[in-house]
């Protein structure tokens, strides 16, 4: 891998006025960017700022409408991902494209442009994974691997192509803090070899920690270029959203006595071969507090959410209680009538229907709880579209949802704005119990701050708020107490004042397996 031929200060890759238009809309508008060998270059921006479009043009997935891409100073046309790889650009995608039934080596073989014997790939992959500290068994089946290990496959598969520029799209969003630390070591090693890394992330702390330079995009234009190590998280976020982000007011919550939502020794077998079974989950959220559940994706969070919301019913009605009533056998509508509100992780096709208008998405979760306001005509149950629209307008105003048109399709909103709408839809009912899964997943900094603030306000007004999140910064910002979910088991909740990141990391490694957890913590 000594093929690094960095040319010092000269840019490895640069773009001049790179533009991509979709109809009249310019997703990228005259972007100038230059990346040198031996640097980790951050690409920052809100959702919809044009990051993905830019990267897709660099990787040959989209054709630029105007502008030029230069590789070592010479103009190049990158017509396909294969052409990008030949040029020397590799990419690790946020969503993996792996076949679960195949082995690591077979998956790598599939992505290569030329036919290479599997044994040679296995040997090469094993060598690379050793060299870069990415432990990986080439003969393991992907189905048996953790998310972190799957990401290593993607990285090794990219490294096999000997790229000089590696693009990483949100690489740490699925990793534990320890796994992320290990990834950073690998990235620093690659930088030491003179390779360039384009690093896309929402996590500003990370960017400050490992990146040498940052380019900030907003509305398809470059709005800032800086050395992130000289900036604060606040100033970086400010460049992303334009103007300083409003800091969260100190939560200062004082929990009441009444337990509004709880589970008692809740055990639910896995519903599908791909889901996690919940084992002996006991939790209680009191009025006026926010209980946060930390954990790496795929450890039972969505299963727990489904059981709390009533999308999965449990055999023992008393295992789930809402506002003092046994709710395990109640439908989601009945739970809403008890005063509960739910915000699922997935926006499209779960929390909202993209092809329906915003006002119709209000009906989605509120047709039962607000039937008196929204339905008329007795058994005919006619929709009162006027009052539904009125609610939609109120939510849009309360949560500062940016949209085009009076009542647009939900799919036309950016991720952050749709999330604000979905959270606002539940808050507008003033629920006594609010269960939220990944409240700010893939949401820009401004919207995330708005949503967190709203959750705290709801708790202050006496609601019990349960937040399931992977984002530790978010958890420490809002939670009164913190529990960790791992392998379908939930740790005992501890006050956030006494909880530490290290302890959460250990608990993420396994609730019972404390030995394993300590080892991980030592390694980092």
């Amino acid at each position, binding site marked *: 891998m000594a093929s690094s031929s960095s040319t010092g200060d000269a840019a490895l890759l640069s773009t001049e006025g790179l533009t991509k238009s979709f109809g009249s809309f310019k997703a990228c508008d005259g972007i100038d960017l230059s990346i040198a060998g031996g640097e980790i270059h951050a690409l920052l921006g809100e959702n919809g700022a044009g990051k993905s479009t830019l990267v897709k043009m660099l990787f040959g997935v989209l054709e630029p409408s105007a502008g030029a891409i230069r590789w070592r100073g010479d103009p190049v046309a990158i017509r396909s991902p294969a052409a990008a790889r030949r040029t020397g650009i590799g990419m690790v995608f946020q969503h993996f494209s792996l076949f679960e039934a195949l082995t690591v080596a077979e998956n790598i073989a599939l992505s290569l442009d030329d036919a290479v014997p599997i044994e040679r790939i296995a040997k090469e992959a094993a060598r690379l994974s050793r060299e870069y500290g990415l432990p990986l068994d080439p003969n393991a089946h992907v189905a048996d691997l953790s998310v972190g290990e799957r990401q290593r496959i993607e990285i090794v598969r990219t490294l096999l192509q000997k790229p000089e520029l590696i693009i990483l799209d949100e690489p740490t969003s699925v990793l534990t803090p320890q796994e992320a630390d290990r990834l950073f070591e690998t990235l620093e090693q690659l930088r030491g070899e003179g390779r360039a890394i384009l690093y896309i992330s929402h996590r500003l702390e990370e960017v400050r920690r490992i990146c040498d330079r940052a380019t900030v995009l907003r509305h398809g234009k470059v709005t800032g270029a800086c050395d992130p190590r000289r900036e604060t998280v606040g100033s970086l976020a400010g460049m992303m959203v334009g103007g300083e982000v409003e800091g969260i007011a100190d939560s200062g919550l004082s929990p009441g006595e009444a337990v509004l939502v709880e589970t008692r020794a809740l055990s639910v077998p896995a519903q599908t071969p791909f889901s996690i079974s919940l084992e002996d989950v006991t939790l209680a959220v009191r009025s006026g507090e926010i209980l946060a559940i930390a954990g790496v994706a795929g450890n039972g969070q969505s299963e727990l959410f489904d059981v709390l919301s009533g999308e999965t019913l449990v055999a023992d009605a008393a295992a789930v209680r809402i506002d003092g009533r046994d709710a395990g056998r109640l439908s989601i509508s009945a739970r809403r009538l008890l005063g509960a509100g739910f915000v699922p992780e997935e926006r499209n096709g779960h929390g909202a229907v993209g092809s329906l208008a915003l006002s119709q998405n209000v009906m989605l979760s509120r047709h039962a709880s607000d039937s008196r306001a929204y339905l008329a005509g007795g058994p005919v149950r006619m929709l009162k579209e006027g009052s539904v629209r009125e609610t939609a307008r109120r939510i849009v105003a309360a949560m500062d949802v940016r949209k085009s048109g009076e009542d647009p*399709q939900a799919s036309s909103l950016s991720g952050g704005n749709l999330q604000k709408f979905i959270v606002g839809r539940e808050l507008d009912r003033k629920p006594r119990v609010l269960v939220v899964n990944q409240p700010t997943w893939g949401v820009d900094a401004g919207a995330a701050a708005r949503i967190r603030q709203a959750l705290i306000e709801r708790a202050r007004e006496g609601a019990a708020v349960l937040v399931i999140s992977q984002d530790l910064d978010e958890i420490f910002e809002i939670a009164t107490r913190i529990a960790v979910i791992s392998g379908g088991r939930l740790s005992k909740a501890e006050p956030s004042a006494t909880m530490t990141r290290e302890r959460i990391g250990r608990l993420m490694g396994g609730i019972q397996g404390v030995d394993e957890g300590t080892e991980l913590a030592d390694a980092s």
Partner: protein
Amino acid sequence: MRLEIERRATRSSLYAALSPFIALALTVVAGGIMFAALGKDPFSALYSFFIAPLTSAWSLNQLAIKSAPLILIAVGLSVCFSSRNWNIGAEGQFIAGALMGSILPVMAPDWTSPLLLPIILVLGMVGGALYAAIPAILKAEFNANEILSSLMLVYVAQLFLDWTVRGPWRDPQGFNFPQTIQFSDSATLPPIYAGGAAHWGFVFALVAAVVTWFMLRRTLKGFEIRVLGESSRAGRFAGFSSRRMVYFSFLFSGALAGLAGICEVSGAINQLQPVISPGYGFTAIIVAFLGRLNPLSIVVAGLVLGLTYLGGEAAQITIGLSEKVARVFQGFLLFFVLGCDTLILYRIRLVSSRRASGEEAAQ
């Protein structure tokens, strides 16, 4: 030089409105080419196929008779398809309704009462709904693919009808022809106006279309249908049950197909025969999609497809072509409708590669 299909930012309402007409125009052009290939003058053939049937009161009555079952069935299917339940077996439910509705007129021919006709019609709906319940149960309880089960049940119904009219229900005075006795007057669905041929089935079709349109657009039930059709996960989040929707949509469309079946038998044929439908249940699938699952547009689409049946008969009589020509036209129409609908969500661009490389050279 290449063609590129590019997703539009928002769906184009212009093409949503235009697409059926473009499809119709393309169908006419393709049909003209087909007639020319068969050695007929395309213009006069198209005239006798599409225009001539609209020029007399008799044939307009025939048009109402042919389109009534198409509209009734397609309106039911619009509920199924909107909720992503693929009922392909309306032809079987049509026959089941006709059989169940014929029980009284065939087995108790002497009973007359003003209640007889309503009872017959209700029995027809019940027959269609019960027959549609089979694939619904198989899907909801055993997760069996409803496309296969509902389609296969069509052949079961067709053969059962064939056996019934050759066996137990054969008319003893019918010279051994495979048919039942004629329905009595009080079991016959009367014409809409005295002296006309078109029976009340056409009126039922219009009423069903308006009522279903109202349900789909203005009530919570319609909202539930749309949400479940878009995403069953979102439906579950809303507290709607996809399992119950399987039953609702199949029973609803089965009942309308059954009503179409008994109207056809009681109003037009007046007895059961081995074959009572020229494929209404299948053609109605085209009608439903041509009308973009909107019950009001389905009325128009039903009239257009009804016209192809009449045109097929005319083609047989006046230009000496097989009535199968009608099927070919229906195939053209469905093909072009689905093709043109692409334009609603996508735009087609001609990209000149020469120009693109020219730009690169300039840089």
